[in-house]
């Protein structure tokens, strides 16, 4: 059966937005953007070598 998936933009966030550990005093870089990039790279590697 096909999965029912909700777009993350439709899921409410908490009032308290918590940045990842290490984000304090990091003003120059968007950590979330950086993380999405890292996940993209990780997924690419996973797809290329799923058993590697």
């Amino acid at each position, binding site marked *: 059966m096909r*999965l*029912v998936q*909700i777009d*993350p933009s439709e*899921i409410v966030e908490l009032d308290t937005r*918590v940045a990842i*550990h*290490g984000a*304090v005093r990091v003003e120059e870089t968007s950590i979330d953007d950086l993380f999405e990039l890292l996940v*993209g790279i990780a997924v690419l590697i996973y797809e290329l070598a799923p058993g590697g």
Partner: protein
Amino acid sequence: MAAMSEADRGAIATARARSAATMRQWRERALYRATGDAFAECADCPERIADRAERLLADDDWAAGLLTPLVDALTQDPWFEPAIKFHRDGRRVGIVLFDCPAVSIAASVAGFVAGSAPPRTIVFTGRRAVTRVVKAGGAQLQSWAVPAEDGAAFCRSSGTRALEDGTLYRTDGRTEARMICDAAEDVVTLVATIRAGATPLMREYDIATGTLVRVADADDRPSRTAMLLRFLRVAGRADAAACFDAATRESAFHLRWAAMREWLALDAARAAPRLAEMAAADPSAEVRSAAAQMLPAIHARLRAAQCPA
């Protein structure tokens, strides 16, 4: 860059074993063991840990007693590599002299740099700390406060005082923040950071306006878990339902909701029963509210998915 000689490679390889033996001996010394014993019976009581840390730091010979054997080892063996944690950032360099489940004690030198711009933000670490100023360097101690440990939209300045060599002070990082500033020379400190009773979040405020800039995980474990859960979602691992479910039961409220968000984005049907539980009984009012807000929309989507087009 010049290539390393074979002789140097060999020297480094053999020095590793010597360094490991030296560090084992260092941790077996009476002073190191006595320090561990001092905290062994009070790991869950922040006030008692602070009392014991204050007594240790007030002892002029304690830090020197730990450092001297390592300095001697370096003098005798230039390849000696002390296996202790080093911290370095733009303002200071430090080493962790002692670390146990109750407390971490670090020695730091904050370098005096003429004309350097002062920080624009102040951080409430969420942890209690005891500080001994070994060399004050003519610096001032600025303090800020918030009214409650669960955070506030604004912090306020609570005074500035001159530091002197030997000054000892405590900071409750849940409601207080301090910064050493306006030094004329390098400032040397010993800081005991207490793990028990800490809040899970750090809060950073703008100094000029006092406004809250950001909130972040004080501990790296919830952040790592949240990243791994996002990876599972992006990788389409719906078979990892047990991982998402377990994370929605963690102690950090923000991690519980982060896990549920990823689970809903991956497999709303499997996540829905747990979402209903969180709406009814999660310990955090914020999480209960968010879950209750999502519940009708998720049920509607699941019903729509069951209906033939």
